[in-house]
């Protein structure tokens, strides 16, 4: 019934010192071998479960549109695919950024994730503000905090223009420390 422990179980008959030390040896042997067996199974299992932390994904550049499709001064939501989505990710593989064409060849890409708790901020074009639907965070057009609880400005993603395409570099969801 009971798990083997280091003390010999009472058998009702007197045990010689030799018998005692044999029991103690067998109990310790069983525990040690059992522990080793458990490790053989659990170490790779934990490795499998914790896999997302090993090795950073290679970030990639994603085209989000032709350069001429963006008007100077306008800020629009652009969608692109994550760096290396799993085949069954479906629509969850998508990410978005707020992309602004500042002038002929300068773009800024803002994260859509509020730095407070990650909710998706919306750009209000007339008001020149980003507003968060969750807890009322507001950012100015340059991404600095205008009001509410966000502790940091909206993060920016690397953008470049290549062969007439505007490209954004994929990035992890920014997690505020």
């Amino acid at each position, binding site marked *: 019934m009971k798990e083997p422990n280091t003390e010999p179980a009472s058998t009702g008959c007197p045990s010689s010192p030799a018998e005692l030390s044999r029991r103690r040896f067998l109990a310790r042997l069983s525990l040690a071998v059992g522990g080793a067996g458990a490790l053989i199974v659990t170490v790779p299992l934990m490795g499998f479960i914790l896999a997302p932390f090993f090795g950073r994904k290679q970030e990639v550049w994603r085209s989000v549109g032709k350069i001429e499709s963006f008007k100077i001064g306008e800020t629009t939501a652009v969608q692109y695919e994550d760096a290396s989505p799993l085949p069954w990710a*479906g629509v*969850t593989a998508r990410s978005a950024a707020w992309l602004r064409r500042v002038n002929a060849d300068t773009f800024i890409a803002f994260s859509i994730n509020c730095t407070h708790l990650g909710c998706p901020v919306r750009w209000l074009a007339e008001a020149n503000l980003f507003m968060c639907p*969750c807890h009322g965070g507001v950012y100015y057009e340059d991404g600095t905090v205008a009001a509410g609880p966000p502790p940091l400005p909206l993060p920016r993603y690397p953008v470049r223009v290549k062969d007439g395409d505007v490209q954004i570099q994929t990035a992890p969801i920014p997690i505020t*420390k």
Partner: protein
Amino acid sequence: MSLKRIYHRVLAWVEDRTGLPGMIGRTARHLVPPDAKWWYVFGSATLCAFMIQVVTGVALAFAYIPSASEAYSTLHFISDQAPFGHFLRGLHYYGASAMVLMVGLHMAQVFLAGSYKFPRELNWATGVLLLGFTLVMGFTGQLLRGDQNAVWTVVVAAEQAGRAPFIGQWLAHFILGGDTVGGATFTRFFAIHVFIMPGFIFAFVGLHLWLVLRHGISEPPVAGKPVDPKTYRAEYKELIKKKGKPFWPDSAWRDVVFCVAMIAVIAALALIYGGPPLGKPPDPSITTASPRPDWYLMWYFAVLALMPPGTEQYFLVFGPLIVGIILIALPFVFNRGERSPRRRPWAIAVVVMTVVMIATMWVAAVKSPWSPNFNAQPLSASVVGATNGPVFIGAQLFHDKGCLNCHWIANDGGRRGPDLTAVADRLSKNQMILKIANGGVNMPAYAANLTPAEMDALVAFLQSRKSQRP
């Protein structure tokens, strides 16, 4: 051979070979204090709700696909097409609600009656862990719906975990299942919701019940009869020996009646309302989203919104940690003395304050006045009171510049900032200009965002906002 004799012979054989019927019978008929009445039903009701969750959860798993690309469509299939699917999802949702509610009532009852004291410290401690597991189940269950709300709930959870010192980024990665929400997120939460947490709950319910049997169901507290660890066990034994009644059926019938009544309520709600509505598809690139937690965590949404800036780490990380430590430590620190709530006014105060706090937070969260109103429509001509000129232009600006998202005027707008329906009663023109240009803690500064002409029009509009309009 008569049927009765066959029955008895079969039973005797099973008893001989397994020993189970006798053991179950003895356990079911163990003696309990005679006055354990309706106050004692919440624990078994929690277990009953958990069993509903197990059977409805298993049934849902017959159709559910735990994949980011399929979960949402299987949820739609279950809700809209599968026979009884709508009802089944409702059962699982209201069953979860009942479980959270019953855990809360059970905990409050045990706390008020001082039943956590010697020798039942570990009954309480395992119960606290079960409360934690139940909340994790509620949270992960909401995610498995795989809709837009689920995606943003994962992100919000990861951001909260990210505030933990040292291991924050690591925890956030663990929750997301990688750098972003994606294919790995849902399979992992499925494993947690369906295997890991239920495994823990089964194990700890077993332990919890074993402890209840080992120490006996606590007798109703009597004022002036404190718990003394030196004498308690002998006194309890004496009480049970003299006045104890068999749990089955003398006491168990109330548990049965209450559980069945609870199931009836759950079934009725499920039949009428079905499962919680599904949101948009789980596409993280759709920026029009207003994530909200399920009702049992709604109050926490208010905590997140109302915690002062800069204190996030205390509220999100240390707060829950401290609450958990206090709850676990409670029976070890106060394991003796009076049990009756009449002699423990602070116990009553703690329960009342907790309920009031959660209820207040909950009401605040439902209203969520801190969220901008993105659906505010341009003000109507009757409200504006002008169809041209600066007042009219100012009213348009008030909408377009986002003022109306946070300020209320007459019958529309947001509740984040002050109600400006009659702002001209309290602010002069210059005060308004100062306020608009410079902003405040919760208001953007508009100095760089308005031309002088626009500012004039906006202020003209606001100056026309009087309680008694001429």
